[in-house]
């Protein structure tokens, strides 16, 4: 490859490492979050360079975008709670002794250095599973190898990943039961208008990513994340306000993906087929069905994770158990 690209890689790698350290060390919490988002963007960029556009999409949308929004929301919440001067460090009453700090740093350095030496000292770059994947692709029902791995070869993993998301929303609702609402986010009229302009664009991109996932980078998770971005904007602009009556629907939407996926996995079994083994010729239909329903669940769950608290009913029900 040409020399500038080599320099580009080098600079990008150095920047990723430096920003990672800076995000942990910067004093201001808001700057920490902005740096974290920049770190995520640059990591996604690096992954594009490593020919992993699917992962870059997922990292940008979920790992960076939504995680950043969650961090920001939490910071907003903490600052709104009577601790106007809340800064990281204020919550840490006892400073770490210098000896302990350097011990920690030394230990970490030793671990990483040991790993690096061990890896460099061994033969690298064996063949992975790409040949097996390429051979099985015609049977998989889709044309994008990553989607084939996610929804066919390793569909069991993906089902469990959707379950992790379900577990997360159950835990979040459980933890924040009875918590008072944080002050609602406020947006002036101009920003409201801007948000309204952005909504359809995000919707189109989200559906496009889901649809494109069968042959190009994208798929249920990336598409779901883009749709969740719409949910975030609806919440932030106040266009949608969660109501206690919506809880039952929300629960149904949370579990929709898990149930559909697991049911298909079990129902296709029999007649000599194992679970998750789609009947010949029906793989594409079933995968699209699963992806569609899983996307809905992902979008709703991610939005609910951002909202946090279960929309509570009466004031009396708000008090948590003793």
């Amino acid at each position: 490859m040409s020399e500038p690209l080599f320099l580009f890689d080098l600079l990008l790698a150095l920047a990723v490492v430096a920003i990672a350290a800076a995000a942990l060390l910067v004093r201001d919490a808001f700057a920490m979050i902005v740096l974290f988002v920049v770190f995520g963007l640059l990591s996604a960029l690096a992954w594009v360079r490593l020919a992993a556009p699917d992962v870059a999409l997922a990292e940008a949308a979920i790992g960076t975008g939504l995680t950043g929004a969650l961090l920001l929301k939490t910071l907003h919440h903490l600052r709104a709670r009577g601790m106007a001067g809340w800064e990281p460090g204020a919550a840490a009453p006892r400073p770490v002794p210098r000896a302990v700090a350097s011990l920690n740093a030394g230990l970490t350095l030793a671990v990483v250095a040991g790993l690096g030496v061990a890896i460099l000292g061994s033969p690298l770059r064996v063949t992975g599973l790409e040949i097996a994947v390429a051979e099985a692709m015609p049977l998989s029902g889709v044309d994008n190898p990553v989607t084939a791995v996610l929804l066919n070869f390793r569909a069991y993993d993906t089902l469990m990943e959707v379950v992790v998301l379900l577990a997360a929303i159950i835990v979040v609702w459980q933890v924040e039961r009875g918590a008072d609402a944080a002050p609602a986010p406020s947006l002036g009229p101009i920003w409201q208008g801007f948000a309204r302009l952005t909504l359809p664009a995000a919707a189109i991109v989200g559906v496009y990513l889901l649809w494109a996932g069968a042959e190009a980078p994208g798929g249920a998770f990336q598409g779901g994340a883009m749709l969740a971005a719409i949910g975030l904007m609806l919440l932030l602009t106040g266009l949608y306000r969660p109501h206690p009556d919506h809880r039952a629907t929300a629960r149904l939407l949370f579990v929709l993906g898990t149930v559909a996926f697991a049911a298909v996995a079990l129902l296709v079994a029999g007649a000599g087929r194992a679970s998750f083994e789609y009947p010949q010729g029906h793989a594409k239909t079933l995968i699209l069905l699963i992806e569609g329903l899983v996307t809905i669940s992902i979008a709703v769950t991610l939005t609910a994770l951002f909202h946090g608290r279960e929309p509570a009913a009466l004031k009396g029900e708000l008090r948590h158990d003793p």
Partner: protein
Amino acid sequence: MNTYLGLVALVLLASLLAGLVRVIRGPAPEARLMAGQLLGTTAVAILLVLWGLTGQSAFLDVAMVFAILAAVALIAFVALSNQGAGR
């Protein structure tokens, strides 16, 4: 051609990193936020250049998602840092 585009990508990356100074030093949240937005735009530009280099249309998808996320992030930052009220 490739060398030229590679140089462009390199310069864009360098300018992106230069913008980080504002993010770290602040001091106003607005300064950090605007710097972050500019970084996002530069990242989109880098992706477009990389697309020019490799011809893989997947880079365009990533660039599109970056662009949408930048808009959403802007709204989230504004709404959640109480900067947007009354503007």
